[in-house]
């Protein structure tokens, strides 16, 4: 700016100087060449013309004057004087000055016109940038040629981005962009202006609604040359429009769907509008009512007086019920009347009063009051019926039901007790009824239990035998629940007795079946072990035969060795006893003794069963090691069943080791007293082991990992152990194989 000013101030001076020098040079040349005016005049006029191209007219005017003076002074006689001798010279000088003036005037006018055009353009640009719209020029193919500042400001695009043809795709909402593309395609051929509303994304990432307006510039053939477009932000208008629309919808819904009839009237009582409920309640279509006086909806007897009331209300409008204390009636189109409540409110403006009447049909309410009175009566009837039903229900349920007081005196018993026990109601009411019908053993338990529960006030259950009128006892499940007062004292006992005889019998049958199955499996196992048993007997017998021969050999000598012979005979005796023992044990195992729990030495039981299974182990090259605790406590158990468990575990262990070749096949049976007061037996093998996932499944019936197994052994073993109050489980060894454990409670 500063530089420009400096430039402006020295340029006219320089122009004056250069112009003057030019004039001086021409004048001097003409003077020297003696060519006088014919050369100098046009040349100096040319200098003036050239100078007039410069921006300001002052140097040209200055030089014109200098030129005129120098021409007069040097070239026009009298020379070296400003006076003029000849008229022609004066005329020439005048022509010269006039021409210069005309040239300067023309040039400066032209220049001013140009400057003002430039200024106009700059102003237009500023204007365009200043208007609060986005403004565009596109070519016929919608490539942007120009866009104002607003677009960049709003979208945050760089000028390069805005110039690219796909700018719209980036900033328009995808849905609107599709519509835009379709519209542009159509408009390209039609060449007509168009408008659309579209969402455009601002630099903050939020979309706002814009009104897009594009106008085409057409050539003479009607082809589009340019599109001039604007985008106007109408977001607020849109939002306002939306809010208004919502408010309107809300009002419409409120008005139309109101459960009350609403009538809108003008100050003169003409109906403007009614809602659906009015149509329903009064039986008119809304088109029929619009324009009619509101009295149309009243019984005829009120019609005359009503305009007066209305006039009074118009004078002092307020929100209030109509006709307070009076029963109002509406009149349907068919003439029927119905009771109504009416609420009035003024909703208009001072210059246009409008009133709203909310009419509620109260005939339903009147009916409801009546219905309520009736239903209360019914409820009382029902309660009586329910009570009777309940009594019947209690008598009908297949349980004995009781209410006792805190001291177990019977307050109530249902029919079932009398039916089952054959007691008379008097007998049943007496406190010692239980003593008469309970099995003596169970009665003792009941008394103890009742005594404890009286203080604890907690519900309890027991199983007891109760004698029926046929003299037979049946098992019952006794359940008593206390009713407590706030101090936790028992007020009442509610008790039931449920016949569980069949369940008990089934349980017993199951137990017997299980024992039977266990025995069957045991006999099968022993059957499988026949060869083993034969071997077990054969061993001592072989010994006896050999020893007998040996004995004879010693005696046969010429000098018999009596000591050796005696030694052989001693071995015969020992082996004979051993054979006898083996046979006795096998007989004990095979004997069908009824299941009986007795004091039992687990070690001895194990030794017996091992006598049977020993050869089975040898046949499979399994080395047996027994680590039996010497101080092992006796247990309470059925030796036949527990031996079956040990036998199953031993046989499983042998089975698991059958395919093992790379390590010694060993089976360890271990007994010990555990910390929980039980005797624990462990059977440990070095076999192929079990998958951890079969942890529990192996105890399921018919689950087996063996090729020829039945899947009963472990299932039966577990039920035997559990029926002894013990537990059977297994764990993988640290090394190869598995250990099975079971526990049996000590004998006390």
């Amino acid at each position, binding site marked *: 700016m500063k530089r420009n000013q400096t430039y402006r101030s020295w340029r006219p001076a320089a122009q004056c100087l250069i112009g003057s020098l030019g004039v001086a040079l021409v004048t001097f040349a003409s003077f020297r060449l003696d060519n006088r005016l014919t050369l100098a005049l046009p040349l100096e006029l040319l200098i003036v013309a050239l100078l007039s191209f410069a921006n300001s007219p002052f140097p040209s005017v200055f030089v014109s004057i200098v030129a005129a003076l120098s021409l007069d002074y040097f070239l026009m006689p009298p020379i070296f004087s400003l006076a003029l001798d000849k008229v022609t010279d004066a005329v020439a000088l005048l022509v010269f000055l006039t021409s210069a003036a005309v040239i300067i005037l023309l040039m400066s006018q032209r220049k001013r016109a140009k400057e003002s055009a430039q200024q106009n353009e700059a102003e237009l640009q500023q204007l365009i940038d200043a208007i609060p719209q986005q403004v565009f020029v596109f070519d016929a193919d919608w490539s942007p040629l120009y866009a104002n500042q607003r677009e960049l400001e709003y979208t945050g695009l760089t000028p390069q981005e805005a110039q690219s043809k796909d700018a719209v795709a980036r900033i328009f909402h995808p849905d609107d962009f599709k519509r835009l593309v379709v519209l542009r395609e159509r408009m390209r051929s039609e060449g007509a202006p168009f408008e659309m509303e579209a969402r455009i994304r601002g630099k903050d990432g939020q979309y706002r609604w814009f009104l897009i307006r594009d106008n085409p510039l057409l050539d003479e053939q009607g082809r589009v040359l340019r599109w001039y477009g604007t985008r106007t932000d109408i977001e607020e208008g849109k939002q306002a429009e939306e809010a208004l629309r919502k408010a309107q919808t809300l009002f419409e819904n409120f008005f139309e769907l109101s459960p009350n009839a609403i009538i809108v009237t003008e100050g003169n009582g003409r109906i403007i509008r009614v809602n659906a409920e009015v149509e329903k309640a009064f039986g008119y279509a809304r088109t029929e009512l619009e324009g009619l006086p509101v009295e149309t909806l009243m019984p005829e007897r009120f019609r005359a007086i009503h305009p007066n009331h209305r006039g009074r209300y118009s004078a002092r409008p307020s929100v209030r019920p109509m006709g307070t204390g009076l029963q109002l009636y509406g009149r349907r189109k068919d003439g029927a009347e119905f009771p109504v409540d009416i609420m009035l409110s003024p909703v208009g403006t001072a210059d246009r009063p409008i009133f709203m009447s909310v009419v509620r049909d109260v005939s339903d309410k009147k009916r409801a009051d009546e219905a309520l009175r009736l239903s209360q009566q019914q409820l009382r009837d029902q309660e009586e019926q329910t009570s009777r039903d309940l009594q019947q229900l209690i008598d009908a349920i297949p349980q004995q039901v009781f209410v006792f007081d805190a001291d177990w005196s019977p307050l109530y018993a249902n029919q079932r007790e009398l039916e089952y026990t054959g007691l008379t109601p008097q007998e049943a009411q007496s406190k010692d009824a239980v003593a008469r019908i309970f099995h003596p053993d169970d009665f003792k338990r009941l008394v103890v239990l009742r005594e404890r529960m009286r203080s604890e006030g907690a519900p309890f259950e027991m199983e007891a035998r109760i004698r029926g009128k046929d003299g037979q006892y049946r098992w019952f499940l006794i359940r008593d629940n206390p009713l407590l007062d706030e101090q936790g004292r028992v007020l009442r006992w509610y008790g039931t007795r449920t016949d569980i005889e069949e369940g008990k019998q089934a349980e017993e049958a199951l137990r017997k079946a299980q024992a039977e199955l266990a025995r069957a499996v045991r006999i099968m196992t022993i059957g499988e072990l026949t*060869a083993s048993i034969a*071997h077990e007997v*054969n*061993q*001592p*017998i*072989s*010994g*006896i*035969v*050999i*020893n007998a*021969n*040996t004995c004879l*050999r*010693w005696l046969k000598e010429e000098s018999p060795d009596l000591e*050796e012979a005696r*030694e*052989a005979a001693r*071995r015969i005796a*020992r*082996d004979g006893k*051993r054979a006898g023992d083996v046979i006795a044990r096998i007989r004990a195992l095979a004997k069908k003794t009824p299941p009986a729990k007795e004091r039992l030495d687990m070690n001895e039981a194990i030794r017996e069963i091992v006598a049977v299974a020993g*050869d089975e*182990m*040898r*046949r499979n*090259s*399994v*080395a*047996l090691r027994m680590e039996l605790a010497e101080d092992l406590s006796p247990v309470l158990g059925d030796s036949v069943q527990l031996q079956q468990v040990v036998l199953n575990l031993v046989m499983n262990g042998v089975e698991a080791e059958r395919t093992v070749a790379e390590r*010694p*096949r*060993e089976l360890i049976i271990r007994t010990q007293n555990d910390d929980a007061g039980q005797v624990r037996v462990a059977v440990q093998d070095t076999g192929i082991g079990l998958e951890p996932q079969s942890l529990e499944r192996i105890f399921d019936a018919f689950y087996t990992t063996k090729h020829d197994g039945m899947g009963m052994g472990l299932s039966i073993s577990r039920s035997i152990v559990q029926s002894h109050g013990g537990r059977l489980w297994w764990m993988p060894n640290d090394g190869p194989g598995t250990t099975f454990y079971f526990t049996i409670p000590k004998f006390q």
Partner: protein
Amino acid sequence: MPEPDAIILVVDDDISVREALEGLIRSAGWRVETFPSAQEFLARPPADAPGCLVLDVRLPGLSGLDLQKRLAEMNLELPIIFITGHGDVPTSVQAMKAGALEFLTKPFADQDLLNAIQQAVKHDRAERRSQAKIRELHGRYQSLTPREREIMERVVAGLLNKQIAAELGISEITVKAHRGQVMRKMRADSLADLVTMSEALGIRRAIKL
């Protein structure tokens, strides 16, 4: 007749049978050692005396047949008499195939066992003798130089001195000298004697013509 230096080894896990066998065998005049399991038998250092093994087929841990296999692997070729409570044919066939001398099913006649023992000890003694002889021959063979071994291989293969000389690229005189050394070191009286020795040693001609 029992031989005083022989030892009869008995492996049976059943005490009745084990002690009965011990008594019987001792009554026939043999020295007896008994073991309740194969493992305990294997733990004992092998005796340098003729004898035999009386072995129960079924044993806990390592079975009788397993022990037989194990002994073969260890090159301890002791004659074995198997005894068993169950005369199952497949087991006896397997045992006999693996070189068992006898397979007796309980109860057996005492004389059958004693005869089998007699037989086995005789067999073992002969076996031990031939083994000793082979060891002696092997010692002599070890004393030969590599060149002498080359010459010996060719001599027993029937090559003439001239052929040997040509094959080894040495003079016939040298071959003759080496050949004399071989005969002397091997203590062979004749070529036939040397051939027999080489067969016992399992020497085969390594080089083909």
